[in-house]
């Protein structure tokens, strides 16, 4: 009898729980539907509240997590978007569309390496996902892996030859990689579709790639004037100012870029390097630190960070950076010189001599490759040949 009562109580409790579950699910679904409706209407705040309410009732809803991530992304809150995407992927790691969105969120917050990893996973699972491949190409471009970037972008371009965006990206990557003719062909193709500022920017890049640095400065100045917030315009202008021998304007340009884009690698590196040379170490240090954080294996970032560490008297730290730089780039003679000099300060004479022997060997190899490199050793020639006007594009 007692057992029968107990069984009845248990059944009643189970039934009650089931009714409550159904009610919870129903309420969560209703909230989710409200969220979708609000999102479709563009009321992002209402959508966010609805999705959050749905998730409060059932925290494991992938759909609500994903949609909430999208809402946050549209609100420009990419960190929160990424947190929701990650929560969704923790439930189901095979949701590759969500992973693509996570990659985009990382990209938007300049976490390029993290974005690259997510996008590579998406492509590994779904090689035809061209959108992911296109963004992966852009990420690889951003972290300086030009051949890999070109490979990804070429796949997308071959599949979508009318995709102006990918043509632009690929053309830019070609120019950076000294594949001038291929770059020029794509630039010609997209030029008419570009807004004026972007048009001058790409012409500036083309002039720079073809060593017409005066022309590059002119184009980039125009681009910056038309759209001062155009990403990388000031960085590219700064680089060209340096090449044409105007260091002060270069410093101003890099500063300008960093106002718009504090995580621009090249602006951080170059400005940090120039300010270090000027002895403004306090200002240079965070810039070089960020550059090295963004690209830990970039030899220029390592070299200039080492120079800064040396100037600060942190010889051991400088030595480690230079050892890493020379490990990554075995022909990097300036790094060998500085490292040998620091070894001398550490009384590591044998190590310094070893490096100087490496420099000697590299010099000898260079001499063998370029037996006529010494241009001044040729006798002077009379300047009575026909005069050609300089070619300025």
């Amino acid at each position, binding site marked *: 009898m007692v057992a029968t009562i107990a069984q009845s109580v248990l059944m009643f409790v189970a039934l009650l729980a089931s009714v409550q579950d159904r009610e919870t699910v129903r309420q969560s679904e209703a909230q*989710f539907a409200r969220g*979708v409706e609000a*999102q479709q209407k563009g009321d992002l705040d209402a959508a966010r509240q609805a999705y959050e309410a749905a998730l409060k009732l059932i925290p494991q809803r992938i*759909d609500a997590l*994903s*949609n909430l991530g999208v809402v946050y992304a549209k609100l420009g809150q990419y960190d929160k*978007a990424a947190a929701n995407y990650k929560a969704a992927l923790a439930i189901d790691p095979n*949701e590759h*569309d*969500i992973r*693509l*969105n996570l990659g985009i969120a990382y990209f*938007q917050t300049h976490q390029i390496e993290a974005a690259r990893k997510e996008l590579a996973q998406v492509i590994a699972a779904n090689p035809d996902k061209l*959108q992911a491949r*296109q963004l992966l190409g*852009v990420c690889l471009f951003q972290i300086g892996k030009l051949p890999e970037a070109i490979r990804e972008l070429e796949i997308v371009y071959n599949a979508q030859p009318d*995709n*102006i*965006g*990918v043509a*632009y*990206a690929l053309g830019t990557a070609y120019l950076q990689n000294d594949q001038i003719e291929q770059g020029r062909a794509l630039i010609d193709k997209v030029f008419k579709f570009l807004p004026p500022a972007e048009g001058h920017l790409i012409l500036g890049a083309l002039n720079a790639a073809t060593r017409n640095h005066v022309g590059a400065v002119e184009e980039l100045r125009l681009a910056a004037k038309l759209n001062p*917030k155009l*990403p*990388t*315009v000031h960085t590219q202008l700064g680089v060209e100012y340096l090449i044409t*021998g105007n*260091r*002060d304007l270069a410093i101003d340009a890099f*500063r300008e870029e960093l106002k718009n*884009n*504090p995580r*621009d690698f090249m602006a951080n590196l170059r400005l940090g390097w120039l300010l270090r040379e*000027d002895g403004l170490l306090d*200002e240079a240090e*965070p810039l070089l630190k960020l550059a090295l954080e963004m690209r830990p294996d970039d030899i220029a970032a390592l070299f200039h960070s080492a120079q800064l560490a040396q100037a600060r008297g942190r010889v051991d730290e400088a030595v480690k950076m230079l050892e890493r730089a020379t490990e990554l780039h075995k022909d990097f*003679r300036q790094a060998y*010189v*500085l490292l040998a*000099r620091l070894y001398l300060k550490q009384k590591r004479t044998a190590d310094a001599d070893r490096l100087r022997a490496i420099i*000697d060997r590299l*010099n*000898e190899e260079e*001499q063998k490759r370029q037996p006529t*490199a*010494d*241009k*001044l*050793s*040729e*006798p*002077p020639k*009379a*300047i*009575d*040949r026909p*005069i*050609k*006007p*300089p070619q300025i594009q």
Partner: protein
Amino acid sequence: MRRKIRLALVVTAMMAAAVLLATAGQSLPQSQSSKPEPPRYLGAQACAACHAEITEKQQKSMLAKAMQPVPDCQILSSHKELKFQSGKFTFEIKRQGNQSMYTVSDGVAQISVPLLYCFGQGKSGQTYVYEYNGAKYESRVSFYTAINGLDFTLGYAKDIPANIVEAAGRQLSVDETRNCFQCHTTGATVNRQLKLDTMVPGVHCEACHGPGEKHVAAVKAGEKAGAGMKRLSDLDGDDINQKLCGDCHRSAEEVFELPNRAGINSVRFQPYRIFHSRCYSADRRIGCTACHDPHGDLETSAAFYDSKCLACHLVKNDKPTAERAARACPTGKSKCTDCHMPKIDLPGAHFKFTDHRIRIAREGAPYPN
């Protein structure tokens, strides 16, 4: 559970923005250090008040004449007319009072400008700087002492001038102008800005020791004599070579950045060359100042330099000591530089430069990069 995943397919057709990296619109942390007013250069007279003898000696040195304004230029004063012809181009420098006019003609067009500055004290040669259309130019021709006349400035001979302006010389960029004056004068730059109105021509005390204002103030206030000055005595041999002297004479690191570094051109860059010497170290006995006194003229006697080598190297049958243990030369005990620091004739320079890469220079052996 119904799946209503709506994806933010954010990648737009216009990947331009993506390539160029979308901006976050954040502002740069304003960490720019304010530039305090730098200490002023006081000139050699201020140094002479306490350091009369060494200042007087330095004023007569070659370094003090590293750059001269045209009115004070000894070479141009003593050469009233200099001429050079190459093909259809004629180059002429004529003294008029205390000025010198530089005229270049191709038979049709002509450019004529007053020279402003003479770079180089003339041991090997001298190059001129003038202004044209508001910019500074380096003359295409230089004076060479060995030929007592003009020839192409190093690096110019193969250029084909596009017009008469280019034939006359090369426009110096802002950075080049600053670098020229920074190394050939004293106090030409303040916070990296070129101050030609206050610079003192030539390399004087404060070029190496730093601006004297703080030091003089400290001394006047009764502080110890060295107050406010750079302590150059703390520098090791490597810092003297690569930093103190290398900043202008080209450090090993800097030379690797030069486009035409390879080959014999590098013989002019002594800090780079000495870095490659087998005996290079941080020892001050291999530092530039061990052999060269920046306060005086260049020593030319072989015996003087022998004593510098023998500060470290033994002579046959010498017993090594803690300070002097480098091996003895098996073939000689004098005129070390004849064999170990050969003089290199740099084509076009009309001058033999001492190669500071200390080595056993064998007859016919190639010049080591």
